[in-house]
């Protein structure tokens, strides 16, 4: 029987799970042999390190370049980093300080030239605004983060959003709508909202912009469910074992780079 081939973003998420599980078991996060991290691994891993800092020993990568990269992306957003290929892991302000997010989003947009090479200003800002707004509206997070990395030779940018909140199915179930984790992702994409029928457009419209308007890819992981979307391919829905469960929600988007402007109003 041929081995199932998973999309890269899902493999990168599973890499995070394996590192996390091994660290919990051994009380040591050993990255000595690690040589490469995509945001889909690194963002939840950074959140995990932050949460378990006191309980787990951290052994950095032996490769100095990789170790330096990890230090950079887990550092602060600094003005002098503008125009660099990455946005470091950024903590979103808590819900009580949401008004500060406006300034933070402005900085992020500026870092990537307002998204002009990532489908245009409207598309890039729409993606980040709606996904961050979803986190504030639905997730009830304690911690929420985003990060991005541009890969010029590979021709894409990967941007990830992670929150440690109640998951998509958890948000539905609080309002009496009970779904399995994986089904809840599809319901959210199709526009089901806990807040009325005029709401619930953010996730699905972004999916359309970035997989139909642009040849991008999107992975959503929430609880024990995951879904992968790519233009002209059937949606893949994953039911995850306990060992791959995520406490929260992770969204990873690969945007081709550089890519021409897309008219988002055709898709939203």
């Amino acid at each position, binding site marked *: 029987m041929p081995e199932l081939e998973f999309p890269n973003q899902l493999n990168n998420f599973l890499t995070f799970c394996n590192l996390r599980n091994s660290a919990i078991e051994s009380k040591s996060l050993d990255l000595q042999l690690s040589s490469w991290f995509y945001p889909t691994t690194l963002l939840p891993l950074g959140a995990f390190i932050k949460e378990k800092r006191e309980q787990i020993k951290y052994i950095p990568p032996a490769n100095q370049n990789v170790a330096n990269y990890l230090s950079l992306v887990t550092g602060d957003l600094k003005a002098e980093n503008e125009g660099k290929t990455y946005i470091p892991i950024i903590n979103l302000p808590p819900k009580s300080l949401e008004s500060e997010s406006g300034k933070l989003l402005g900085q992020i947009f500026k870092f990537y030239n307002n998204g002009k090479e990532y489908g245009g200003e409207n598309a890039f800002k729409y993606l980040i605004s709606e996904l961050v707004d979803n986190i504030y509206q639905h997730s009830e997070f304690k911690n929420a983060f985003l990060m991005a990395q541009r890969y010029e030779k590979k021709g894409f940018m990967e941007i990830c959003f992670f929150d440690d909140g109640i998951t998509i199915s958890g948000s539905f179930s609080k309002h009496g709508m009970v779904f399995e984790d994986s089904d809840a992702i599809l319901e959210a994409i199709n526009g089901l909202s806990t807040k009325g029928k005029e709401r619930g457009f*953010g996730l699905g419209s972004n999916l359309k912009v970035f997989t139909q308007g642009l040849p991008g890819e999107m992975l959503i992981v929430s609880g024990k469910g995951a879904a992968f979307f790519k233009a002209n391919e059937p949606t893949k829905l994953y039911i995850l074992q306990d060992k791959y469960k995520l406490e929260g929600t992770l969204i990873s988007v690969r945007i081709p780079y550089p890519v021409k402007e897309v008219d988002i109003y055709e898709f939203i």
Partner: protein
Amino acid sequence: MNSFNNKIIIKEKVSENLALRDLASSFFDKIEKNEIRQVIIDFKGIKSISRSFAQEYLYRKANSRKNITETNIPENVEKMFEIINEPEKRTQIIDMRTVKVICV
């Protein structure tokens, strides 16, 4: 927000990027506290607007007892407002019958 001036430059009160729903809500909370009945929202310098912000803005405007109008609305903001005001055209994005389910 100056209670003697009925023109409010939204960029100065929120941001040049109108991103988050709750920011639209708190913007309107401040307008509602203002005693002026006629309010002009000036969109000069606005670079982007999310659907969530636009939806909340129009919802709060429709439910306000003040007479609120806009000026200097950029094309992208205008388009977003039009989309929100269109009759609902929600379509199913994922056809559940074509979804491939895989256990990992």
